[in-house]
């Protein structure tokens, strides 16, 4: 009896401590990064061109590459996820699709970057481009999107599908009107997750989108090189000849964190409100 109570107390303490450790770590990181960066953050720094020491072009490229890569990866990733969750019968082919997805998910991003370097930069001869960077980045996001979509769709109760089919709807009507709307929060969470990763990704983009920015700002041409914020951070820390390297790095890091945070809220909040309307609050 006593030893049960003791182990219960020990377990409670350890689990609480682990939880607090994680929260503490996060708070420390945020406080440190934002504390260092806030001194540097100014309108000129955030939106100004490179010639004035700003990171405006990098910030623009970050979003541009993110949007382009989502344009590639969301239709294919969500499509494959829907296929696996709704259409695929257990078979060799299905297992192969799932296995390929998992293998793709374990490929280190540096390898994807070098792959992109060979394909887009060398074989296709495009050089460092925003387009190539976005395509290589899509490869990183694809498997995660497939997995997240499949899992989000599987949380929709089978009874909803049967209810819809029993009213004489087709399978696609059931998916579009019942299954997708009720799993939208899971899908959005997945897209936010990959977006966060894409915003922070550097290894892939160093080899595909390059470490320089266009002379024009903003430049929508997808066939020019486009350094993102994360790549810029890596670059100024590695390059000895950058003026104010410390300040630029601190500012870029803080901005990166804020961008991810902003992105999560901008997508996550509307999705949550939509979901609450569906579920009803009595």
């Amino acid at each position, binding site marked *: 009896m006593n030893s049960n109570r003791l182990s219960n107390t020990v377990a409670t303490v350890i689990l609480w401590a682990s939880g607090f450790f994680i929260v503490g770590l996060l708070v420390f990181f945020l406080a440190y990064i934002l504390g260092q960066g806030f001194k540097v953050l100014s309108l000129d720094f955030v939106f100004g061109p490179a010639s004035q020491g700003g990171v405006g072009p990098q910030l623009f490229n970050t979003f541009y590459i993110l949007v382009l890569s989502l344009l590639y990866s969301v239709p294919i990733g969500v499509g494959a996820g829907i296929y696996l969750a709704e259409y695929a019968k257990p078979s060799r082919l299905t297992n192969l699709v799932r296995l390929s997805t998992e293998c793709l998910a374990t490929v280190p991003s540096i390898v994807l970057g070098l792959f992109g370097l060979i394909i887009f930069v060398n074989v296709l001869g495009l050089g460092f481009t925003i387009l190539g960077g976005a395509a290589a980045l899509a490869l990183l996001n694809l498997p995660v999107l497939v997995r997240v979509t499949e899992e989000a769709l599987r949380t929709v109760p089978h009874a909803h599908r049967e209810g819809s089919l*029993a009213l004489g*709807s087709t399978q696609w009507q059931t998916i579009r009107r019942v299954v997708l709307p009720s799993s939208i929060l899971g899908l959005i969470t997945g897209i936010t997750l990959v977006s966060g990763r894409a915003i922070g990704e550097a290894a892939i983009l160093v080899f595909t989108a390059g470490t320089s920015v266009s002379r024009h700002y903003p430049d929508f041409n997808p066939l020019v090189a486009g350094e993102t914020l994360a790549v810029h951070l890596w670059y100024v820390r590695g390059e000895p000849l950058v003026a104010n390297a410390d300040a630029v790095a601190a500012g870029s890091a803080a901005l990166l964190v804020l961008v991810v945070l902003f992105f999560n809220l901008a997508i996550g909040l509307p999705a949550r409100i939509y979901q609450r309307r569906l*579920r*009803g609050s009595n």
Partner: protein
Amino acid sequence: MEVNVENKFVVQNLNLFYKDVQALRSISMEIMKQQITALIGPSGCGKTTFLRVLNRMNDLIEGVRIDGTVLLDDQDIFGPDVDVVNLRKRVGMVFQRPNPFPMSVYDNVAYGPRIHGQKNKSQLDQIVEKSLRSAALWDEVSNRLFKSALGLSGGQQQRLCIARLLAVEPEVVLMDEPTSALDPLSTLKIEELLRDLKNHYTIVIVTHNMQQAARVSDSTAFFLNGDMVEFGPTETLFTRPKDQRTEDYITGRFG
């Protein structure tokens, strides 16, 4: 017997296998138009499986094989030119657990008409009100039509599912233990509703509640281990069963 009694379904020699297990053995029966036919029997006897044959819901389950014929208005529902989607529009189903979609009461009822192409707003309004009235739910939900259906009580949710089904104007309503998850008062409401609906629809109801079968149905079929042991007018089956096993079951000796 009345003269205007017609067949809706004619089932001949139906066998159903789930992988290697035979779940239904040479079932033959006729289901009459505008009557309530009850299917009773202990758990696992095949009554729900049989019900799901009638609108081909078993198609969704891996490894089910069926032989024999099922005629709906003289047309084989397993025939090559039968469109399953159209069949399910004619033969709708209410499930054991209420399964309203996570959307508003209105959208739930309008779901069927919408997928079948009804876009006119005032037409939809009419269909929604008529269906909710038919399901005896209108008075309780008319002031919360645009709130989520998941906020309704279990009994209300089940009547909503019935309304949702009536909105597509099926010819046959299949019900799989529609009151087993409900309290007695909600059960009573649904049974009253069934008696009203019978004037317009052919109803087949699976129930494990023998009193319910006796109260609402015109004909009753007793299933046991995949066989249909006995089928006849409800009154006869409950008062003068022909088969010893039927008598044992209805007198509560097993099951």
